């Protein structure tokens, strides 16, 4: 276990150069796009040129790039991510991200539930009944799931289940807001305050977006579980288990599944990390004010500090998700030691 702690600390230290690199890259990329936030605000000539000049000065956009970068770094290391320039001018960026994040987390929770609860069984059954009709249907389904654009699926779900058969609300907007906002994740807030309306409303409003978003991860997980299951099923110990008279279910679920879940864990962990980073298209289509939409909006409006902060945030989450997966590995497979 001592090795594990050292490993975690080593990985956390590695965060620093990665984060610096991410910031530098984002900074260079953002500033090499033609246009700037003030020009966006002043777009179509509505701001007098004089006001534009003044704003550029206020935001320090007239300074040389490397000075801007170091000023930004200095601020970030003091915990100051700055204020938004053009998305919500003047709003504190930390606040913006922290308000948006719970919605993304909630979406991720639902999508992960779908991904795990449907993806793993589907993969197992598919592997168990290799080349049967069930297997073929699952495989084609997974292929479709992987290839379908999320925004298209989202709009289709809206049209089918929101308009034609209006079971689910079309958009996130209009969700019942919990009286007590402890976490900002409405499902959890609902359980904490035992507010059933909030719980049901949360499930109903997140149903379509999480299906749209979960479809891709779900398909990836299914394919992953299926292939690793097939590999494991060919192993000697499975033959041994069968030979000693173990029931088929016990063989599959007790012996094979556990071992085949190892690679699936990696995929699931990274998928969750990716989902937490914001599902841009899903959040846009369903009008969820989450992190992904915030950052897209920021990119479209050249909101440099917001983009920087958002990318930084996503990068850190992704790295931590990676780390958690690695640590889980050690737990799941006793042979792995750090």
């Amino acid at each position: 276990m001592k090795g594990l702690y050292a490993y975690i600390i080593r990985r956390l230290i590695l965060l620093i150069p990665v984060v610096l690199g991410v910031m530098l890259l984002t900074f260079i990329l953002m500033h090499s796009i033609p246009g700037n936030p003030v020009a966006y605000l002043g777009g179509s000539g509505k701001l007098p040129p004089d006001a534009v000049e003044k704003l550029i000065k206020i935001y320090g956009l007239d300074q040389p790039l490397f000075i801007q970068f170091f000023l930004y770094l200095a601020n970030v290391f003091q915990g100051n991510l700055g204020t938004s320039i053009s998305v919500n001018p003047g709003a504190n960026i930390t606040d913006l991200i922290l308000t948006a994040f719970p919605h993304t987390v909630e979406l991720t929770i639902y999508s992960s539930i779908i991904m795990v609860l449907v993806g793993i069984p589907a993969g197992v059954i598919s592997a168990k009944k290799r080349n049967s009709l069930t297997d073929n249907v699952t495989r084609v389904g997974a292929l479709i799931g992987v290839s379908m654009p999320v925004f298209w699926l989202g709009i289709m779900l809206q049209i089918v289940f929101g308009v034609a058969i209006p079971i689910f609300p079309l958009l996130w907007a209009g969700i019942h807001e919990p009286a007590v906002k402890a976490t900002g994740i409405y499902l959890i807030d609902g359980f904490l305050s035992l507010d059933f309306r909030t719980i049901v409303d949360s499930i109903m409003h997140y149903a379509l977006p999480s299906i749209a978003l979960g479809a891709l991860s779900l398909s990836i997980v299914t394919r992953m579980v299926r292939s690793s299951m097939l590999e494991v099923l060919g192993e000697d110990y499975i033959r041994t288990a069968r030979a000693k008279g173990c029931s088929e279910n016990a063989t599959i679920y007790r012996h094979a599944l556990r071992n085949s879940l190892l690679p699936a864990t990696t995929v699931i962990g990274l998928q969750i990390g990716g989902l937490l980073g914001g599902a841009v298209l899903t959040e846009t289509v369903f009008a969820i004010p989450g992190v992904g939409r915030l950052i897209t909006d920021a990119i479209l409006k050249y909101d440099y500090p917001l983009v920087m902060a958002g990318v930084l945030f996503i990068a850190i989450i992704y790295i931590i998700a990676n780390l958690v997966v690695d640590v889980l590995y050690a737990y799941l497979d006793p042979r792995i030691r750090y």
Partner: protein
Amino acid sequence: MKKSVKYSLALVLMLSLAASGIIILSPIKAQAVTTTLKIAQGGDPITLDPYDSWDSASNDVILNIYDQLVMYVPSTLQFRPGLAVGWQILPNTTIIFNIRRNVTFHNGDPMTPYDVWWSLQRVLPLYLRSALFNSSYINNATANPHHWNWSEYDGDRESFVWLLFEPVKDIRMADIGFWGNTTFTGENATAGDGWDEIVVEFSEPFAPGLSLFSYAATSIVNWKVATELGPHGMKFAPVGAGTGPFKFNSWILNYKVVLDKWENYWGQVPHVDRVEFQTILSASSRTLAIKTGMVDLLYPESADWYDLKSDPNIETWQEAGLGTRYISFQCLQNVTGRMFGILSNTTVRKALSYAINYDEIINGELFLNGLATRMTQPVVPAIEWAYNSSIKPEDEGGILPIYNITKANEILDSLGIVDVDGDGIRDIKGWTNSSDDFKLIYGYNIGNAVRERVGTLLKDSFAQIGVDLEIQGDEWSVFLYDKIVNGAYDIWMLGWGPDYIDPDTYFYPLFHSKFIWSTNGAGVNISSVDTMLEQARAETNQTIRAQLYKNVTNILINEYVWAWCYIPDNLYAWRTTVTGFKHSPLDQMDDLEYVEITPSAGAGIPVEVIAIIVGVVVAVAVIGGIAYWRKGAPA
């Protein structure tokens, strides 16, 4: 277990799940005790502090929280008294506003003339503000501790619209005796004890001046609240700052702004209890949202217009807006080395005006798809008093050019511009210093699909009259500030939006010779036009002004300085449950106090049915799963 026992267990499970579903879901149905008007917007507001606002998402919210001195009769462009019960426009460039009495802000404070003065000075240019604040008049008259730190309030930020207020020289409170009292009580004055006139002086005669005080930026705010809240508070949560029909409730960034009805509104008290401006970025989601009744009102996407129009649950409104789109000719004789100077000939411009397919641009699916109106003159029909409705296109019995290739060819032939060398392009030797072929350059800004396609359309029809057209796209800033003003294009397409609601804004910057090389890109240089525009600007009599503008219009039309193209329509769509919506020609959602809303008759499947379906599905899944597990997997 016996089969019958199994089945009855399953039945009990299903029923109990369905029942619990109904119990859980039923509170959802039992809502709607208040009436809420939901409006979808494509973006979040930028600020709720009026003086800083210029974008439409912010203005729509601000206009409902705050009032202005001068407001519009709903659905028209006629002024009506707002927070000023009346005004006098004096010939010596002065406007006197009489401030309305007994108006209260949302926090209960009475509105005072000082609030008005404080709110108005905020939009002025910086040098003028500091002069106003430092004037002995204010310092002696009031011992106001807030005066010295006015610049701390918003740093050295000027209002985004200050440029429009440059003609203003002075704004002051006065007691002219409209209400018949003389005691000056400065900032503590309540409307009613005198000093309730606001005098605005302009540095030069400026007839459109009145319309400046109808802007969202000149909304009257509670100066005490504004000073307490500071810039950040005013921007994001202006509680108690306005006098408008709705008071600020909450703003969840990137989600919605919620406004509540203000019961003590001095005007029409709102019918709805609440207004929600929801931010829905995705255009297709906005359309679906209004189709399913999730929102009640929005500015429709032009792509979805006909879909919404055919929906029986949705009402739509389409009307020529305030912006104009025109194809401009470079009329100057010799601009740069490469200019022909041929377009300085009125008859040549006339010929080209006949080679533009206006109908295709307005109705073609690739262009405006019917969501525009033919432009006939510089000013738009919404400004009725200056608009000459007798000017019509030829096919409607008027004089304006329509698409007529034959006529265009005839005119060019009659000028002696013919194809000499037989290459299909007319030759203009003698007209030009650089080329034989009649060749023009059309400019557009990259990213504007309509203007790009208009270029292709023009190239095609110009080819039929023997004119070669080169299409050239440039970035917006290059297009506008570099190419057009330097005469790098022969023709180009451009739009114009009014700065204030007055014909002056449609003429003065565009056709006065003093703006050649800037907003007068066509290079119109007609001295009689200059004179009349200056006269109209200084004249206070509306009839005389209208005549002056009509005279200028006639000259411009006969000179063919522009090809008058189209006016994009304002589009609104609302659910049939909404009544009393006033569609403003200004393309804004003002006057929401008149809107009434009847709750819709719960379209869709009842919650009970959904609960039963969900219950059955879950029960089947659970029972099936258990059965499958017990039976063991088939080999």
